[in-house]
């Protein structure tokens, strides 16, 4: 088990998700988990205000949220294992015009 300081990752939030969470960045002790595990855990912990932005009705990652791991699209590799210092960014579509 690594120390909590070393095991932190950063979740960077944009648009409506940032508004729902109330913060632009959150540090999470998720290193060692996969991208998907970390996001599912985060979504479940935050409950109804946040879950629908990240998970679909089946509890899988919602297809229309763009996930970036250290600035690169995660695409289909949500099983990538996180390491300390990683940054996950979550992008949602914007409807306004």
């Amino acid at each position, binding site marked *: 088990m690594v120390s909590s300081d070393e095991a932190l990752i950063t979740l960077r939030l944009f648009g409506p998700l940032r508004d729902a969470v109330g913060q632009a960045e959150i540090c999470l002790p998720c290193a060692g988990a996969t991208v998907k595990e970390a996001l599912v855990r985060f979504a479940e912990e935050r409950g109804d205000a946040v879950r629908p*932005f990240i998970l679909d009705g089946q509890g899988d990652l919602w297809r229309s949220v763009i996930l970036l791991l250290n600035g690169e*699209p995660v695409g289909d590799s949500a099983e990538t294992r996180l390491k300390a210092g990683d940054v996950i960014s979550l*992008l*949602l*579509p914007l*409807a306004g015009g």
Partner: protein
Amino acid sequence: MTAFTEEQVERYSRHIILPEVGGKGQRKLLDARVVIIGAGGLGSPTGLYLAAAGVGTIGIVDSDVVELSNLQRQVLHANSDLGRHKSLSARETMEAINPDVQVIAHDLRLSSDNILDVINDYDIVVDGSDNFPTRYLVNDACVMSGKPLSHAGILRFEGQATTIIPGRGPCYRCLYPEPPPPGMVPSCQEAGILGATAGVMGTIQASEVLKLILGIGNPLSGRLLLYNGLDMTFREVPVARKRDCPLCGDNPTVTTLIDYEEFCSLRGAAALSEEVTW
């Protein structure tokens, strides 16, 4: 090729002296046909710059009327336009800026029944709509008919933009395969919008359209541009065409146009019923 009038030479002189534009490029602009979906926050700056640039034929699609709350950002319309149909107000403003430009007002609400007929007459489409059902409909129609599409979306102080070139790069569904569930992503009416955010993103759309017409530079294809006006940052995310895209992938599941439920309607029931009668 028709010769420029003296007035045109003067009007477009700052374009013509650009090596990337020149007389040939200006002629391309005058011969081009672009349709803008929505005469709102995004469509206003896009329309103003395309008209000023001398894009010869501009279609503007909108079924709303100008309201007081629009004027904080929708710069095609003035106080004196309150209550007028936006497509007509927009046409008047654009034609006043540049009499070379023919503006066609499409005073209608887009649906799967009429969108292909509308965009068929144009070379390039600009999405400046304000709701997800229209955004998916416009993307799907453009991909199905092979029309380049400039996309942008805005909320509060943030914007996103990408350029969709069917057959050559990812489409909107490659980024966001399906619309959000009803009520999940707020509208500008619900969450607010700094007017200048619309100006930044609409002007990016105008730049993209002009580049496409001129055949210069690198289009914002395969890239999603993210703008944050509070931090004043631009970021770029690479996006690839998805082989499992429901629309442009190898085995598409979206093969006909879909009218998604107007779950994020910005209008009241009275306004909707009014639209039907137009």
